């Protein structure tokens, strides 16, 4: 034993680099270990969140299995739970949000990246960044007191009057509902689409534009037929990021969606979403009820995990393409 311990420090200095002991004396090794613990705790927390959600949803997972996602019942008094209405509401509200936000956001990003002079573009981008910093509960507040009455008094009756023959616009105008939540979500995610798309468009090499203009295309044709297709995967990335935000958004949706578990083709109908039902019910829930809610949280986690992963992949692809072409 004694011999083996004495040989270890002797072996150190012969290895070329500074020995473990001398690095320890400098504090370098201690610093490395301590900062490593902090970095590792990020991984640990992330893993813990997944494990905790998985573990605390086991009652519901064991009871329903995959059927959880096709059941429409949500009955806390009889302890019978299915996720379909909430998944539906989340997808519909986010879908409406994107339908409005993508054209508007992409248009604004094109203006900022292609048309506006640098100074104006930077100033407007600054305001867009501030808009992205507005907390979601403020959007909810404005939703409740501005958007909902507006929808109830003007927009929904108008939609019923003109397009009322479509199944999309049936039923009484409550003000709250899928469409209202979608509109509020759209306003919320537009800044994300603009910021990321603008960055992606700016990374498109100059010669792409110049080549198109030299061939006689108009400014819009060079933008729409050359620059935007070049940046396509990055723009898709920005849309996925926005979708991930919209799916997980809680406050703004909870305040305007109506909180009524319904599946209806009508966009005017009140609905519910995954995040909203968690926000409303979690504190009172226990047993299978609690576990069903936590399983919904797990679903939300899975949705956003996949979307964020795809978005990052697409964004990396475009920026690589842009920088690679830039050297040509």
């Amino acid at each position, binding site marked *: 034993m004694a011999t083996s311990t004495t040989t270890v420090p002797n072996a150190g200095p012969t290895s070329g680099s500074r020995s473990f002991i001398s690095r320890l004396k*400098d*504090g*370098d090794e201690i*610093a*490395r270990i301590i*900062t*490593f613990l*902090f*970095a590792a705790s*990020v*991984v640990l*927390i*992330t*893993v*813990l*969140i997944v494990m*905790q*959600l998985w573990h605390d949803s086991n009652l519901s997972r064991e009871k329903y299995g995959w059927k959880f996602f096709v059941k429409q019942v949500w009955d806390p008094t009889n302890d019978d739970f299915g996720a379909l209405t909430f998944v539906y509401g989340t997808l519909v509200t986010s879908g409406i949000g994107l339908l409005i936000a993508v054209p508007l*956001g*992409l*248009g*604004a990003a094109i*203006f900022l990246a292609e*048309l506006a002079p640098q100074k104006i573009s930077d100033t407007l981008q600054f305001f*867009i*960044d501030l*808009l*992205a*910093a*507005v*907390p*979601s*509960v*403020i959007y909810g*507040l*404005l939703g*409740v*007191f*501005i958007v909902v009455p507006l929808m109830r008094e003007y927009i929904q009756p108008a939609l019923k009057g003109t397009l009322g023959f479509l199944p999309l616009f049936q039923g009484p105008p409550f003000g709250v509902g899928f469409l209202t939540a979608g509109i509020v979500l759209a306003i919320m995610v537009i800044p994300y689409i603009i*910021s990321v798309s603008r*960055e992606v468009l700016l990374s498109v090499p100059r010669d792409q534009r110049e080549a198109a203009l030299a061939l006689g295309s*108009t*400014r*819009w*044709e060079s933008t729409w037929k050359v620059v935007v297709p070049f940046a396509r995967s990055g723009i898709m990335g920005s849309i996925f990021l926005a979708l*991930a935000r919209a799916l*997980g958004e*809680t*406050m703004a949706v909870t*305040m305007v969606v109506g909180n009524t578990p319904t599946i209806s083709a009508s966009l005017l109908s009140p609905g519910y979403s995954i*995040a909203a039902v*968690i*926000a409303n019910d*979690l*504190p009172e829930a226990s047993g299978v009820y609690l576990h069903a809610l936590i399983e919904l949280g797990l679903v*939300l*986690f899975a949705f956003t*995990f996949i*979307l*964020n992963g795809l978005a990052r992949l697409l964004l990396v692809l475009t920026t690589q393409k842009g920088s690679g072409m830039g050297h040509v």
Partner: protein
Amino acid sequence: MNARLRWRKFVSNFMLTLTGICAAIAVSALFFILGYLVYHGGTSINWDFFTKLPAPVGEGGGGMANAIVGSAKLLLLASFIGIPIGFFGGIYMAEFSNSSIAFVVRFAADLLNGVPSIVIGIFAYTVAVLPFKHFSTWAGGLALGIMMIPITLRSTEEFLHSVPRALREGAMALGASKWKTIMSVVVPAAYRGIMTAILLALARVAGETAPLLFTALGNRFWSPGWNQPTASLPAMIYSYALSAFEDWHRQAWAAGLVLLALILIVNIFARVILARGTAVPRS
């Protein structure tokens, strides 16, 4: 000029104008939001709002002093969790890590950054509320702190990476150890950027409501210590906005104005003054 070319030029101008309108709509949203908050909430902001407890229904007046203090306490707790882990983790990522560990940590941080805040809230609820059978300031601070980690870590890493190699080499050549180099040369060089990122992270979690609903919950009164439910500005806005009382609606608008003003001031300060000359990474 033939008709086809005229048509193409018209389309070009038309579409480009349309993109300008899109940008104008997006930016004007900010001013609409601010304008409405000032219009509806401005009149309810007075000395009482900052110094008094919420008044019972029907009495009128009252303030949100407990929510303001509650928010401050939650942010303090969040800072104690989010800043050290993010800052030192970022130092490890930029200065010590090898590529495979860096990949894993970066992946986890990006994943954590994308997790919806309500899911973080569920986590805090299951680890810090259920086992103790009561809501607490601790639990709310934990949820907000976890949300701060990835933003602080990634931006610390990025700003440290942007410090020129020559600075490190200069310090090392003078005989400084690696840790000494980092703490006395590299970190001070990246100081403004890191401060900016931390302030932006704080501003972001200051407005978070979803993770507080079932961790810090809310409280009509003062919350002594750290072990009891506490009021917070965002949660107050939520419950007051959905109440049925005209008085409370006005208070919700006022609280919204105060919260947004604080967040925008911190954002503007961080982006314009502190970050002058450094590139601010966007969320």
